[in-house]
């Protein structure tokens, strides 16, 4: 690993208060350093913009459900192929690219870190195998614990200490980065009560003496006590349902000042006409944005919708089943014992369709109403709201008012009337704000201190864009991408391939908890307790991010 000097570029490094100043960025042994000797290679970045590598806080790129979504759509790969070169592997694209194509395409957009957002514990080993074959970018995953039968049993018996130890064990055993809640309580009704679903936070969860409210509160508390870098990642109940914004606000209130991240909130910001839940949804983006603006403990990613082909893939099985009525021919459902559900539907968002246009507008509203870019960050919930390949266009929609107005004129106008988008259409994001919502913000929310910034000691993940009035063009193809100090892309071409690291946590727990878990495993799981934890060799380039338990320090 050599030395590198990037000179003459306008640097955007919000974490260090640098917003477009022309200054040098120096790299040595994979890290940002204060200076390098004169003999170091210099990249002439005059007329270019220098930013930390992009950080995707929430996407679906690896693991069991992603692979099912790949397998089920040969027609989506056929028209978007990825040729091999002397040094890089071939692959296929579409809304769910093959692993190699995923790594290369993220890097080619200037992204150097991405978090897979929903993995069943039983699927952790599979996910790590796919991440191993996802080159260049650093990555990690969130593990699904919000419908875990054993954790529910500990909760309903009031065994909160053991619940916390069990959660810590599960995070470590699966090499996860953070706990993920998806439609808490929904799976038990889906699997056990003829495809029913949870609709209220205070509804009893099937056979358990528990409600979603109790479950969510318990996870927020335990995760904060464990001092996780990213305490808990929440996909609220009632996703996609008309009138769901009330559920979303109620859930946010449960945090009570403690840290919690709420994901793809665009899908959770729907109102209804005079409380009629059957009618077309309306926009409640303003209510949601205002709550986030005024609650510094809350962070969120938007989950914007972009028109065109997408694949709805979620642990929220009842949702996918609902979409099946609009979606089309293929529906995949995959239940995981004791842990989760999963649903997959190929889906196309159309600008003329009321609901789709409203979802598009709400995504933009949330961005434009946000007063703190550090806490309302960028995502399309790839590939649910749209592929990560649409990020450059979404950036242009935020930065270019005229382009946005022109796009607004093309969509279903009834939907636009229902949204508040016209009221906030004057705002334009600055390059510095873009650097925050696509890099610095996600890194800070994730607790990845070496990412999303270019201060001395940070990871040398750097993206260099050629300035262009057309921001979609500018962000679609950076001139240089440096990953961990390696010049991976030069003049838009891959010059080398690097593996990328896996980030995970390993919180401490009372070993005694295993005596509680093992009998349950032998009774109800179909693999042995001893064969459940994932061995270190599945994460060959692992970085364990330390936790700061409450009361410790």
């Amino acid at each position: 690993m050599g030395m590198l000097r990037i000179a003459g570029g306008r640097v955007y490094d919000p974490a260090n208060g640098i917003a477009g100043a022309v200054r040098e960025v120096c790299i040595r042994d994979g890290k940002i350093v204060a200076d390098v000797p004169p003999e170091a290679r210099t990249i002439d970045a005059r007329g270019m913009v220098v930013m930390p590598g992009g950080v995707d806080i929430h996407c679906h790129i690896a693991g069991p459900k992603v692979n099912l979504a790949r397998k089920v759509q040969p027609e989506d790969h056929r028209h978007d192929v990825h040729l091999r070169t002397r040094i890089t592997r071939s692959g296929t694209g579409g809304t769910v690219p093959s692993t190699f194509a995923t790594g290369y395409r993220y890097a080619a957009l200037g992204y150097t870190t991405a978090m897979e957002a929903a993995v069943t514990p039983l699927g952790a080993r599979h996910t790590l195998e796919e991440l191993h074959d996802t080159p260049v970018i650093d990555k990690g995953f969130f593990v699904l614990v919000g419908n875990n039968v054993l954790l529910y049993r500990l909760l309903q018996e009031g065994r909160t200490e053991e619940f916390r130890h069990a959660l810590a064990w599960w995070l470590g055993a699966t090499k996860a980065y953070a706990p993920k809640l998806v439609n808490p309580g929904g799976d038990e009704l889906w699997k056990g009560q003829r495809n029913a679903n949870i609709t209220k936070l205070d509804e009893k969860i099937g056979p358990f003496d528990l409600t979603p409210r109790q479950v969510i509160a318990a996870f927020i508390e335990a995760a904060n006590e464990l001092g996780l870098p990213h305490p808990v990642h929440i996909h609220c109940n009632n996703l996609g349902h008309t009138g769901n914004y009330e559920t979303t606000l109620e859930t946010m209130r449960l945090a009570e000042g403690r840290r919690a991240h709420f994901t793809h909130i665009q899908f959770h910001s729907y109102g209804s006409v005079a409380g009629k839940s059957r009618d077309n949804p309306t926009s409640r983006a303003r209510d949601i944005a205002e709550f986030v603006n005024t609650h510094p403990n809350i962070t969120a990613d938007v989950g914007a919708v972009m028109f065109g082909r997408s694949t709805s893939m979620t642990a929220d099985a009842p949702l996918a089943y609902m979409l099946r009525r609009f979606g089309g021919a293929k529906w995949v459902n995959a239940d995981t014992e004791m842990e989760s559900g999963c649903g997959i539907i190929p889906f196309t968002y159309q600008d003329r369709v009321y609901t789709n246009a409203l979802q598009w507008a709400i995504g933009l509203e949330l961005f434009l109403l946000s007063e703190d870019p550090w806490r309302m960050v960028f995502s399309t919930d790839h590939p649910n709201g749209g592929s990560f390949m649409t990020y450059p266009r979404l950036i242009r929609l935020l930065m270019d008012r005229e382009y946005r107005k022109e796009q607004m004129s093309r969509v279903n106008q009834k939907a636009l009337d229902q949204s508040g988008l016209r009221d906030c259409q004057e705002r334009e994001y600055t390059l510095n704000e873009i650097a925050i919502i696509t890099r610095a913000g996600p890194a800070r929310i994730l607790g990845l201190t070496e990412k999303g910034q270019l201060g001395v000691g940070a990871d040398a993940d750097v993206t260099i864009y050629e300035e262009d009035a057309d921001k979609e063009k500018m962000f679609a193809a950076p001139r240089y991408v440096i990953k961990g100090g390696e010049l991976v892309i030069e003049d838009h071409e891959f010059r080398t391939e690097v593996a990328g690291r896996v980030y995970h946590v390993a919180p401490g727990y009372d070993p005694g908890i295993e005596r509680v878990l093992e009998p349950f495993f032998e009774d109800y799981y179909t693999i042995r307790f001893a064969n459940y934890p994932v061995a270190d060799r599945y994460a060959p380039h692992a970085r364990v991010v330390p936790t700061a338990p409450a009361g410790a320090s």
Partner: protein
Amino acid sequence: MSLAITLHTPPAVPLEADALSPARLAGLAPDQVARCPVVHGNQAAELGEFFTVSGTADGEIHLEGDLSRVKRVGAGMSGGRMVIHGPVGMHLGAGMSGGEIVVEGDAGDWVGPEMTGGRIVIRGNAGHMVGSALRGSAIGMRGGEIVVLGSVGNEAGSGMRRGLVAVGGDAGDFAGVNLVAGTIVVLGRLGWRTGAGMKRGTIVSMQPAELLPTFAYACTYRPVFLRLYLPHLRRLGLPVTDEQVNGPYQRWSGDAVELNRGEILLLESGLAARQAA
């Protein structure tokens, strides 16, 4: 005078010759045609390594030789005319939108998959998946005509949304499976499970056939549209009789597991013939 392209060296492994299409060769001199790129297995090659080229490209191309290992001939073809004197390989006229291909011999699997327009006439037999959808796609042929004088394999016209597939001989299993619309005419015998999952569209057969339990007899009548379709097919070389043009036909509706708006028409006298036998 047209362009004559004759095989001089049969390929050792499959040859993908997308270049063999009137639009791609328009205005090229023989030596330029000979330099057109083809893919021989995993390696780049030129047409000239396998074919001798003569004449001038005036929109009509004549191919000579055993092309059964040559794939994708006329793929994406949008106009002009191509006559193949001999057998031809897979994906003939794949996704074509216009023009005409005539094969004086047999054709491999996937004749005109997902085509949107134009006409393909096969004087011999064709393989499986004639005018079909590709795996994973719900929609197959979107327009155009495929006429096979001989027999065809399985899944002819699968997922067709618009267009015509006509077969002089027999059809294999699952003809018109998942048919969305469009017409399939089979003068010979139908294979098993014809029209399984069809939503709309018409499948016509001149021979008795055992249909799925989800098809129901509706009526016997003389369809007017056949008096337009069948003489047209006769002009294209199918041995259509006056009796077939005039009917009567039994109308079976299905598929009940789907929309149930499709129909299978069976020529009455064909059925009579069965009872006699």
